[in-house]
């Protein structure tokens, strides 16, 4: 087709509803704020892994939908999550990313969370246990027993990930939230304790969903030099994409031929439990989480949307806690050759979404983003994105291809696959 004038450029593509989206869903600041309220504050999000806080009194802080969160391990070893907010004057109680409350601190006592502002103190169950000069200041009008922290729903599930939900009234627990999408890797993650072996993060000027899109389709192989020339056999293109309730998708396994990889070796020996040698599963969880079990290592991406045009992506890698030093070094090597900051793929993926971010800034002209590939529901099919945006549309009650209109269902899936079972339970609504 020849180049287009403005009117032609802005016309709807000749595809069916559901096969493209309007770029305002990636750039509009009001839509972004609404997503935090309607989606991120309603979803179960795995914010960290239990091996990041292994000992009693260890903690980890995080942000979820702009809410500061602290996750702590109590003396009873149980992990609990709270808003990291002092009930007194709204100070952030803890500002370090991770650490331990066990030792005494300059502004706090051992084994307590202490707000450094006015020294209110809390135990690992969120009880307020000390308000300095409580009687003198409040007489009998306010008691510390009424000033506990805001506890959040929290579950440790699927190999030790710490899932948090800001919605007290969520109709889901983690298992029903994941709706079967994790079944393909569940046994591998749960067989024995995992341990974090890698962490880095990237802050990219683009909308968070663009990263999720990249994790949900595989034909950006064209961007990956190494992928183009090595490693894939016919099985690669026959990996099935499956849609699950609540917007999740997974990608079925195949056997990676690592001997074809440059600077990589066969990973069979260190393959995770219950996984055939060198197999590879991937799970994309709504609204922005990715689990990637590739033979000997697990990669876990967590997105924290910072603004309509900025996302923080945290990349974690996991091995088995029981690893020998030698096996651990090998796993780290396997992780980094593919997914490290200078690995085969990851930086190229980030270049891709950074380029999208440049063209889809707030107030940028509207563009139509195509998700219309049908390729038998295998990995070059864009069913993952179509499914995601169908659920997104329901939760937001907006039409992804024209977000100023109300949701209606478009062509989500390919001809040989019915819509994901149910698609029916989401907060406050029941679809027909």
């Amino acid at each position, binding site marked *: 087709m020849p180049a287009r004038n403005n009117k032609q450029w802005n016309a709807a593509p000749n595809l069916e509803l559901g096969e493209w989206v309007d770029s305002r869903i990636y750039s509009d600041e009001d839509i972004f704020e609404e997503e935090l309220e309607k989606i991120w504050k309603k979803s179960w999000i795995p914010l960290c892994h239990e091996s990041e806080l292994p000992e009693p009194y260890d903690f980890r802080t995080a942000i979820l939908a702009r809410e500061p969160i602290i996750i702590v391990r109590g003396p009873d070893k149980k992990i609990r999550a709270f808003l990291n907010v002092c009930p007194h004057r709204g100070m952030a109680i803890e500002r370090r990313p991770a650490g331990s409350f066990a030792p*005494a601190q300059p502004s706090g006592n*051992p084994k307590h969370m202490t707000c450094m502002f006015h020294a209110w103190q809390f135990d690992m169950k969120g009880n307020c*246990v*000390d308000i*300095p000069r409580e009687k003198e200041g409040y007489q009998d009008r306010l008691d510390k027993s009424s000033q506990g922290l805001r506890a959040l729903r929290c579950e440790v599930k699927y190999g030790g990930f710490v899932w948090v939900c800001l919605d007290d009234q969520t109709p889901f627990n983690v298992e029903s939230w994941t709706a079967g999408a994790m079944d393909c890797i569940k046994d591998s993650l749960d067989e024995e304790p995992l341990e974090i072996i890698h962490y880095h993060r990237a802050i990219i000027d683009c909308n968070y969903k663009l990263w999720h899109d990249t994790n949900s389709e595989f034909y950006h192989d064209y961007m990956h030099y190494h992928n183009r020339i090595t490693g894939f056999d016919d099985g690669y293109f026959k990996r099935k994409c499956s849609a699950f309730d609540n917007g999740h998708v997974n990608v079925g396994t195949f056997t990676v031929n690592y001997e074809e990889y440059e600077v990589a070796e066969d990973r069979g020996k260190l393959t995770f439990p219950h996984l055939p040698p060198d197999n590879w599963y991937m799970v994309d969880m709504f609204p922005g989480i990715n689990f990637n079990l590739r033979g000997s290592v697990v990669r876990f991406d967590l997105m924290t949307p910072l603004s309509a045009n900025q996302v923080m992506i945290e990349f974690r890698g996991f091995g088995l806690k029981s690893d020998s030093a030698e096996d651990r070094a090998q796993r780290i090597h396997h992780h980094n050759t593919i997914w490290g900051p200078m690995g085969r793929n990851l930086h190229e993926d980030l270049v891709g979404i950074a380029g999208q971010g440049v063209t889809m800034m707030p107030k940028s002209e509207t563009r139509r983003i195509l998700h219309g590939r049908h390729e038998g529901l295998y990995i070059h099919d864009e069913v993952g994105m179509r499914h995601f945006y169908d659920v997104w549309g329901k939760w937001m009650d907006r039409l992804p291809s024209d977000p100023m209109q109300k949701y209606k269902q478009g062509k989500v899936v390919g001809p040989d696959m019915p819509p994901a079972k149910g698609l029916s339970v989401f907060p406050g609504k029941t679809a027909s």
Partner: protein
Amino acid sequence: MSWRKICAVSDIPENSLEKFETDGIEILIANYGEGFRAFPPRCPHMDEPLCESGMLFDGLLTCSKHLWQWDMKTGEIAGMAEKDLLMYDIKLENSDIHVYIENALVYEDDEEAEEEDEEDFFNAD
């Protein structure tokens, strides 16, 4: 366990606290001028290590974190403290300090609320 020699009198200057360990049990010894006291190393209020937070002057031990105080002469509560300091028996022999240790003295933690049922908790008014 029994009487154990912990240190020499001259090891602890007047108005100071020193921490010692015997068989894995940590104790603090305070020289308050007119005598010595031996007690566990943590403040019974919020577990603060008293060897760092404790100040000793005029017979008064003060935890500088929240100003709980104990009278070292009588061993009793002074000022804002709400819990007694647990004490070990102590005696002086040949310029050495001996402390009677049966078991480590441990403060009972405040009772924490029973774990509530999650659904009751998150749906409560």
